[in-house]
């Protein structure tokens, strides 16, 4: 196609239009990234408010006021919803997927740039809607992120008719945005690779993001149907989930969790991909078992469709069905453990560089293991009878989601920041931020395991109303205090950002001495990523570190083989 050389001459929109109307995958990536960061601050603020209420019930929370029970419900509901759909997914999948995939496979952009732009615009609309739902008359939806009917379907129960419908529409639009984006990622990875890049030369993080997109796309369909049914129940009085009209609330549970369970692997896989890239680079060692890891991830993806009803163990499902789902749930822990063994085996014997990204990657491993192991208790239907809907569940999923979203997110951010912005962040500030986040994190959620085992249930705004639980109040105060400390330490991150943007040292093309293709172009990459006549060709896999044939301990993918070799 003769126009491709001209394509690079077309620099894309300039000025303010660049940030609103660009189709360049790197710009779209940043749009998703900063939107995700903004939503994280909002979601984090919600957590701050409700944790203050739990530690000091009835006391006016600085920056918010007194928290009413209805507001408490809206806060916990929207904290969860926002963190999953407007922070975890946009940062890990949309932002880093958009930024990395074309660069890492040696392409000049995604294959459908305009659909890419459209996906962000729909996503932005969904973010505006979910925020709007918080401030409309009646308040934000408070029926939990799981939105079970009849609470979610009947305004006479949820008392938030506007907020509830806006919530469902916002989530539905977010789904559409990610369906569009996902098709771009999948098709780009499958088709647009650099010459010479075979399937097993693709960096793991790209595989993981694409697998996550496939998992998402295949699991969200029934829930989209369900969301349409729920909106109709809410607004026009149908009875899809109303037994009196021939409907069934349990159907919603199935529709939701058939998606809801694969969804957690949708966010887990990209995070593990990020960790793999970082570990290989900073252990200076070839990834142990590329194909093993890849096929294990595929097995996890497949198995993830077979475990969903472990969220419904005490919903009155057939106990025989509960048995089956216990078995499948325990089974899925095996390939996940496998992934971690691959990472350990890569670290073993490596020459480890403890940079800030590496610290985040290692912290991911340490904390996620705790989350994963506590999942085994919850996945056993017998134990779950006691533990369901307690703070044990909450601590379990924060020991998984927090490593995935926050720890994995910071790992990716600090690792690829030099490439995205052309500057090196301050390592000292980075390490202070790291320790100030990870240590307090444990002091927030270990207490919550204890509270959960003690019988404390979720979604209750004031435990002083329960005499048998009131005595554990010091534990709640400890958790909240740790959260305040952790939030305080985020200042170091923003300080680092501002300092680096103003006068950080230039990064150069490949500050980490990594092998993958994104490090062969300028930092930040130009429009089109490489000059049109010098698009990279690939000669080897992405993890050739410490190769005996080389003097240097890394071997970029695009270096032609030595003459005569």
């Amino acid at each position: 196609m003769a126009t491709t050389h001209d394509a690079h001459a077309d620099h894309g929109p300039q000025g303010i239009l660049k940030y609103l109307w660009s189709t360049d995958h790197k710009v779209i990536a940043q749009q998703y990234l900063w939107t995700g960061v903004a939503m994280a601050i909002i979601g984090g603020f919600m957590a701050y408010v409700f944790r203050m209420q739990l530690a000091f019930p009835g006391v006016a929370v600085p920056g918010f006021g007194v928290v009413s029970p209805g507001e408490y419900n809206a806060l916990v509901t929207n904290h969860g919803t926002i963190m999953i759909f407007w922070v975890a997914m946009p940062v890990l999948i949309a932002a880093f997927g958009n930024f990395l995939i074309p660069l890492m496979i040696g392409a000049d952009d995604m294959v459908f740039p305009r659909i890419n732009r459209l996906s962000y615009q729909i996503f932005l609309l969904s973010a505006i809607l979910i925020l709007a739902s918080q401030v409309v008359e009646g308040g934000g939806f408070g029926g939990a992120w799981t939105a079970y009917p009849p609470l979610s379907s009947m305004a006479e129960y949820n008392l938030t008719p506007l907020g509830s419908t806006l919530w469902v529409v916002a989530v539905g639009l977010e789904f559409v945005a990610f369906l569009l984006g996902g098709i771009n990622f999948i098709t780009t990875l499958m088709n647009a690779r650099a010459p010479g890049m075979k399937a097993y030369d693709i960096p793991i993080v790209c595989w993981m993001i694409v697998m996550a997109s496939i998992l998402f796309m295949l699991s969200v369909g029934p829930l989209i149907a369900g969301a349409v049914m729920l909106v109709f129940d809410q607004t026009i009085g149908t009875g899809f989930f109303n037994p009196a009209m021939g409907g069934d609330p349990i159907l919603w549970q199935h529709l939701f969790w058939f998606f809801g369970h694969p969804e957690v692997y949708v966010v887990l896989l990209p995070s593990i991909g990020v960790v793999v890239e970082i570990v290989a680079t900073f252990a200076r060692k070839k990834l142990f078992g590329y194909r093993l890891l890849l096929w294990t991830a595929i097995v996890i993806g497949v198995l993830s469709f077979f475990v969903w009803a472990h969220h419904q163990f005490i919903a009155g499902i057939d106990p025989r069905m509960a048995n089956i789902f216990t078995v499948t749930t325990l089974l899925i822990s095996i390939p996940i453990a496998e992934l971690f063994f691959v990472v350990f085996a890569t670290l073993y014997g490596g020459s480890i560089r403890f940079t800030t990204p590496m610290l985040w990657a290692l912290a991911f491993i340490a904390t996620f293991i705790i989350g994963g192991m506590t999942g085994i208790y919850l996945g056993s239907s017998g134990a779950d009878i006691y533990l369901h809907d307690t703070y044990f569940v909450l601590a379990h999923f924060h020991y998984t989601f927090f490593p995935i979203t926050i720890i994995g997110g910071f790992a990716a951010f600090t690792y690829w920041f030099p490439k995205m912005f052309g500057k090196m962040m301050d390592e000292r500030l980075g390490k202070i931020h790291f320790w100030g986040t990870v240590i307090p994190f444990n002091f927030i959620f270990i207490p919550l395991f204890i509270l959960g085992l003690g019988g404390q249930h979720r979604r209750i705004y004031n435990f002083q109303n329960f005499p048998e639980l009131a005595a554990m109040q010091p534990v709640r105060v400890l958790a909240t205090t740790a959260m305040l400390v952790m939030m305080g330490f985020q200042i170091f991150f923003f300080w680092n950002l501002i300092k680096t943007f103003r006068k950080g040292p230039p990064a150069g093309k490949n500050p980490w001495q990594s092998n993958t293709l994104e490090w062969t172009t300028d930092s930040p990459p130009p429009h089109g990523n490489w000059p049109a006549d010098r698009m990279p060709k690939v000669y080897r896999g992405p993890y050739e570190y410490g190769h005996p044939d080389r003097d240097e301990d890394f071997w970029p993918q695009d270096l032609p083989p030595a003459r005569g070799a």
Partner: protein
Amino acid sequence: MSKPLATTRSATGIPTGRLAVWWVLASEVVIFGGLLASYLMHRVGHPEWAEAAAATNTWIGAFNTFVLLTSSFTAVLAHQAAERGDGKKAARFLTYTIGGAATFIGVKSFEWATEIGHGFTITSNGFWSFYYTAAGLHALHVIAGAIIMGFVARDAARNRELHRVELIGIYWHFVDVVWIFLFPLLYIAK
């Protein structure tokens, strides 16, 4: 704006646009599949819904099936013409397909107006809720497909982007396939 180099590559051997359409279809299969599975579970579990189901008009449903099958036929003839490079002919067949879509929507509007007039609304009972939701979601896909097809036809008439004729055709056949299942589910299974 010009297409990126990435769009022209094809490591799988399938042109990028067509590969994307298969993935779009996969995502639509699970959306409609989820909705129709939910409907079927309820329908089988509620034998008393047969009374409501008896009120749908099988002849109108059959006519609309005929219309969509015919429109699929014209769509694939458009594809054949596009492959031979005859953009004008392809555009003509696509226009017939859009005409089929319009006929389908027209007949459905008349059908629904009649049913609503008889008091069968979306809130009448569970069967009717699913009936209007499923057929309505399908009709939205018909309308969206027809609009996109209009743009493709306009380009094809000028012999531009002829590969898109096949792509919108594949989507259109999928819309037809969904109706092929909706017809027995909503009209014949009484």
